[in-house]
């Protein structure tokens, strides 16, 4: 046996390395190492990261069997585990509302869980048990398809840094108080909520990702926000709500984020921002804003164009700009307010750092062309301007090109790329 022991290549490595290796294995392989040799029997048992998914069990067509197998596997693994569990991740479509999950969460809440990711299946959503709210050390919480109902005594997760709720049934007040109750929160992602009106107060928030039907969003206290990505789906009643609203959404949303570096807006974001009365000069300058991506900007709506202009003219260090249009070409013939560009447009602003501009889904409507003209004329450092026409526009392309040729360029080295599909 001595001979074998001295030949043993790997068991002598420090436990931290062994754990690092085992953590990189699928959990099933990691647990299997327990029968390799006597030394390996419990090496896996102190792993602090447990990631379960459907690869843990043999797939078969029998759904019940797979479910049972998965439940058994997880239960046994937890039972055999020793020591703290810092990360627990479960991703499966097979389990939805399974009572075992409650027990696992109870177990985890007693074992210093720090990162919890539950991605469960469609169907009846899992109702998160109260023991979850006792996980004092939680730093990351990802819930997919769950019901989240904090008890009234719940004040928040004091250590939580990252919160991701996707398709979670929760009352707006609960979310707001949850966010406010997590003072260290740095990353927040909320997706697929219905008609959510939300005020976000998170003094340490750096990353924000919103996707869903939001009736109203106000970033009241997010001074450290660095990057945000917002997709606002519009339903009829939200649209109606917007019609009647008079508060300036732009200020409410972007009024308090001086450190913003990246801004990505999808679907109706610019429309959302355009709602409300224009309060004139923007109080802040986005001195750090480098990358702006706005999708589905309608260049027929003057208000949306104003929003875009307002944003970029207050971003002296803007480097990259990407805009995709969503104009209806049939209405393009008759464009109102075309004088704006001559008369009212800020003529003394220069985009000194702007290097790359991408305009996609361009229909060639007059305002789009004027906007491009405006950019070209005021970007002395521009390197690339790429323009991709919308797929539905076939006839207008030549006209677009002819116009483009005429535009003056402030930057001698600017390349204009017309990208055909």
């Amino acid at each position: 046996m001595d001979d074998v022991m001295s030949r043993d290549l790997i068991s002598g490595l420090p436990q931290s390395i062994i754990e690092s290796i085992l953590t990189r294995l699928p959990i099933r392989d990691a647990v299997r190492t327990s029968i390799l040799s006597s030394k390996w029997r419990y090496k896996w048992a102190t792993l602090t990261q447990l990631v379960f998914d459907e690869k843990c069990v043999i797939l078969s067509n029998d759904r019940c069997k797979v479910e049972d197998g998965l439940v058994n596997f997880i239960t046994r693994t937890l039972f055999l585990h020793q020591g703290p569990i810092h990360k627990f991740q479960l991703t499966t479509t097979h389990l939805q509302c399974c009572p075992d999950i409650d027990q696992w969460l109870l177990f985890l809440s007693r074992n210093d869980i720090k990162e919890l990711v539950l991605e469960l299946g469609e169907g009846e959503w899992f109702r998160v048990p109260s023991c979850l709210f006792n996980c004092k050390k939680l730093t990351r919480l990802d819930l997919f398809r769950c019901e989240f109902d904090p008890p009234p005594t719940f004040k928040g997760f004091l250590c939580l840094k990252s919160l991701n709720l996707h398709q979670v049934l929760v009352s707006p007040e609960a979310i707001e108080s949850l966010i406010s109750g997590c003072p260290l929160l740095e990353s927040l992602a909320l997706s697929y909520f219905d008609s959510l009106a939300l005020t976000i107060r998170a003094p340490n928030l750096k990353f924000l990702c919103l996707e869903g039907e939001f009736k109203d969003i106000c970033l009241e206290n997010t001074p450290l926000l660095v990057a945000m990505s917002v997709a606002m789906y519009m339903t009829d009643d939200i649209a109606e709500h917007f019609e009647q609203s008079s508060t300036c959404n732009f200020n409410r949303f972007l009024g308090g984020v001086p450190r913003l570096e990246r801004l990505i807006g999808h679907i109706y974001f610019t429309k959302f921002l355009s709602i409300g009365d224009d309060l004139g000069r923007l109080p802040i300058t986005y001195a750090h804003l480098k990358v702006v991506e706005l999708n589905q900007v309608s260049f027929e709506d003057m208000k949306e164009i104003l929003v875009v202009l307002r944003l970029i003219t207050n971003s002296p260090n803007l480097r990259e700009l990407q805009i995709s249009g969503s104009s209806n070409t049939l209405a393009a013939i008759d464009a109102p307010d075309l004088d704006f560009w001559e008369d009212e447009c800020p003529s003394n602003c220069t985009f000194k750092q702007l290097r790359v501009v991408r305009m996609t889904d361009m229909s060639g409507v007059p305002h789009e062309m004027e906007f491009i003209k405006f950019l070209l004329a005021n970007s002395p450092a521009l390197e690339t301007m790429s323009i991709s026409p919308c797929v539905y526009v076939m006839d207008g392309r030549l006209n677009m090109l002819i116009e483009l040729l005429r535009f003056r360029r402030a930057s001698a080295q600017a390349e204009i790329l017309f990208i055909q599909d």
Partner: protein
Amino acid sequence: MSEVDMAVIKPEMMKSYIWLQTADGSIQQVEQEVAMFCPMICHEVIQKGMGSSKNYAISLPQRVNPAMLSLILDYCRFHQVPGRSNKERKSFDEKFIRMDTKRLCELTSAADSLQLKPLVDLTSRALARIIEGKSPEEIREIFHLPDDLTEEEKLEPLKNTTDDPRIRLLNRLYAKKRKELKERQKLKNIEVEEERVDDRSVDDLLSFINGDNGDSKGIKNSKSKKKNRRRKDQQKNTSANEAIKNHNKEPNGLNQVCCSAEVGQTVRAGVGATSNLHDVEDDIFDNKNELDDGDIDDEIDPALKEKIDREVEDFARRLNSDWPERMQEILSFGHERKPVHFSLNGNGSLRRYANSEQR
């Protein structure tokens, strides 16, 4: 670089060097920026002022031998250059990591002692890739791990309720027996030769399980080499045991899900579906050859022997008689069965199990 070489270099090209000493005593110089890429060396230089000359060479930890040091320095030399793209670095890493497993393990150890985390991560990933998806036998072979767990220990942790309880019973019995025999062997310290099992006519039980030539593959009936009448049954059982056992031995209980399920499924597929289990045996018999113990029938306490034989016979009889009902059971309730727990003393439990079966 030796000092002679250094003299040839023009003064303006001279860089600073750090002196390193490996555990075997050999000392070498390394360019400063390369060596300082290792946190441990960096610490020694900055905090303790070591490494500036041959007399004050930094003593590297024991786990860093010259060959490993050379590899590590190659790694550092490439990565400490700031201008490289991520793609280049990745590509270098992929090529760098191609080495035999022994060196990979040594490298991991050495990198860890020098606190060079990126390299530790890289090697850990490579080792994980090696381990992933392989059977325990393969892993043991690659890393030269001793197979020193008893069967029972292997089975203990993670049984799965989809196991066919019959198989679990066989495993338990086998494990217990093997353990006892192993202990005896240790006491006697006899080197036991494997004796090939004679071909013998196959008992009905075995024909249910695995068809005609269950024995003739040179099954390691390591327990019972002495063949007497009683042994015959037992051997049939043990060979079936082995078959299933071995199959279940490779993975631990977790894989028993799949292996037992496979076996279970072969059982389910019909009483006559013996071919699958055949294949099972085929697969595993190559691996089972280290079972050297157990050929000491003569020395087995006859009383114990008797007891074991009785148990097995009892079991075999029960199986034989119950088979059709059991088949039915398996087909309908396969995954709801609760594990039946056995004590090491097989008697009581066998009785218990037997009782529960004979409703």
